């Protein structure tokens, strides 16, 4: 593998990691602070993408469409919180899993009824179209650089909010010991709603940002949800820093594994068997990483303080 190709693959890994981080950050907060398993989180990613399709084509501007999509996603998220999730916080995990799984089926079908079953897309905004030339004349799409940049900016903003503001302090406290925070007189329901709104926005942002490079289709959130769960298990439940590190690890391992496993195995075996084994191995690589992390550090790499 040449240096140029390696750089491109690392960028690809970073970009997948950033996308995963945006989804996993909300998931880990909701799970960590509210002890609520929200399988429907992936659906919010999908909704973000679909809303972006609608608003970008309505307004003709990517930025304006993105802002409107985020606002609409927030409204839908809050409505869901009010109508469904609020009644599940006190229930046990099995009830939450069942109810939110039902919500996945319902919303996937609803999306299909509204937007149709065929995949849709959002055009890359004109000011981010084109490529940037890297070493060896290998090109890398400008939009993907923008996606990495936007993800890092959101990550920095999250870090600031969680580490430096009063709300963030309550969040961290809630992730460590929610009943104690409540006992200290904090309106835990309001805190939950903020957390939830935040998570929804992040997932919708990820979906909307992914829409120009990925196909927008019913069920697109289901795949990313599984990866997001891997991320929060690797990173440590309830920890934003953990989600960040976990997402980058999963993104890089998955991408580099897929691109180099064949060549690696070809050193030891014949081309056809390397191909078969490479395809199988590279798709299970991240789950191997998760299993190893669970074995060595069951609480994840960077768990929220006070959780065990």
């Amino acid at each position, binding site marked *: 593998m*040449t240096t*140029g*190709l390696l750089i*491109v*693959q690392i960028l*690809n890994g970073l*970009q*997948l990691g950033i996308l995963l981080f945006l989804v996993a950050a909300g998931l880990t907060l909701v799970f960590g602070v509210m002890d609520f398993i929200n399988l429907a989180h992936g659906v919010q990613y999908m909704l973000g993408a679909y809303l972006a399709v609608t608003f970008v084509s309505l307004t003709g501007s990517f930025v304006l469409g993105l802002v409107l999509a985020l606002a609409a996603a927030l409204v839908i998220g809050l409505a869901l919180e009010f109508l469904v999730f609020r009644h599940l916080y006190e229930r046990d995990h099995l009830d939450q899993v069942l109810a939110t799984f039902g919500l996945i089926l319902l919303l996937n*079908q609803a999306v*299909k009824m509204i937007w*149709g*079953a*065929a*995949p*849709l*897309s959002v*055009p*890359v905004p004109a000011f981010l179209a*084109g*490529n940037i030339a890297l070493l*060896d004349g*290998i*090109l*890398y*799409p400008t*939009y*993907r650089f923008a996606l990495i940049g936007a993800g890092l900016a959101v990550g920095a903003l999250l870090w600031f909010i969680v580490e430096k503001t009063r709300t963030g302090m309550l969040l961290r406290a809630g992730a460590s010991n929610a009943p104690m925070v409540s006992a200290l007189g904090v309106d835990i329901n309001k805190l939950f709603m903020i957390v939830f709104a935040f998570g929804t926005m992040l997932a919708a942002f990820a979906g909307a940002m992914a829409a*120009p*490079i*990925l*196909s*927008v*289709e*019913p*069920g*697109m959130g289901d*795949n*990313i949800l599984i990866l997001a769960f891997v991320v929060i298990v690797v990173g440590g439940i309830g920890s934003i820093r953990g989600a960040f590190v976990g997402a980058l690890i999963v993104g890089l391992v998955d*991408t*580099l594994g*897929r*691109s180099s496993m*064949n060549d690696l195995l070809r050193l030891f075996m014949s081309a056809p068997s390397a*191909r*078969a084994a490479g*395809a*199988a191995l590279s*798709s299970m690589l991240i789950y191997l990483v998760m299993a190893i992390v669970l074995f060595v550090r069951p609480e994840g790499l960077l768990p929220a303080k006070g959780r065990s």
Partner: protein
Amino acid sequence: MTLKLSLSLGAGLLALGIASAQAQEPIKIGVVSVLTGPAAALGQQLRDGFQLAVDKMGGKLGGVPVQITVIDDELKPDVAVGKVKSYVEGSKADFVVGPVFSNILGAIAKPVLDSGAFLISPNAGPSTMAGKACNQNFFVTSYQNDQVHEVLGKYAQDQGYKRAYIIAPNYQAGKDSLAGFKAYFKGEVVDEVYAPLTSMDFASDLAKIASTKPDVVFAFLPGGLGVNFVKQWSQAGLQGKIPFLSAFTVDESTLPAQQDAAVGLFGGMTWAPNMDNPQNKAFVSAYEAAYKIVPGSYAMQAYDAAMLIDSAVKAAGGTADKDKLRAAIKKADFTSLRGKFKFNTNGYPIQDFYLVKVAKRADGKFQTEIAQKVFTDYADPHAKDCALK
């Protein structure tokens, strides 16, 4: 009073009598298609294409009213078997038309054929049922699956390309696809990639393509996989630089999402919406008027399936005599939207195959268009394993 009553009663009875004399026993047709999940866009085309033909004939096929039951197979073989079995047993169906996917066909073929109904597949054409497992009551109005991939292999070979990069999803149909391509392409395969079926981002594969610089890329990436690949292909600046051949990757079901990114890319098919014959022009404009999208091969083949049934029922004078009906179906005496169409001994078509190219129409919609003929009167090689004559 009594007179009035009995008169009106008599009139009523008379009306009933007339009605029952008019109502022939309808032809019962089960349309099995995938209508939920990511593949539903294909299944809807199948269902709508068939319905369009029936509507055009005034709700009759061969002059006999039809009773259509649409069955959603959910792309789950176990679900499909259960639903189809209870349908064919409960309703004494004459025909079952469907499905889109070969694995569903494998599941429903036995219960349908055991019930005595004719099974007409408007899309799935597995090699097994073309060869040893062929059946006298099983007909295909699409193609044998391998043939579409072979079109691109043949074209790549004819063009004199030396180095090919080929990619497909990591499942049986993906392996069959690349094998089909390699059956005709004799040059060097620089890389043969099997991507996970859940792949979303092909950036790492595209980076490899950009650095290995093959003469040609062949991809079999159906549905959302193809949408992602083609969009990212264009974003990576590869559009127009490396010839892109594909099967089921750029078609009318994916073009609304791929749009400009797909223009100029090649596929293989037996037909395209711009095929120049009067029946096809009428079909495309009627389909677009009814469903607001450009029809793809799924709709075309289902439409042809309805026309096939129409011709056979007409020739056999109904559905009562199965042997007569079968002989009439084998004749394929209908005007196909493809122009030429005839059946081989195994119930699969013998027909022409084309290289098709994606183009943007004057009205801003996207469609595939015939670029050149690759195979003429192409029959699948599995027919020799079929015992039917």
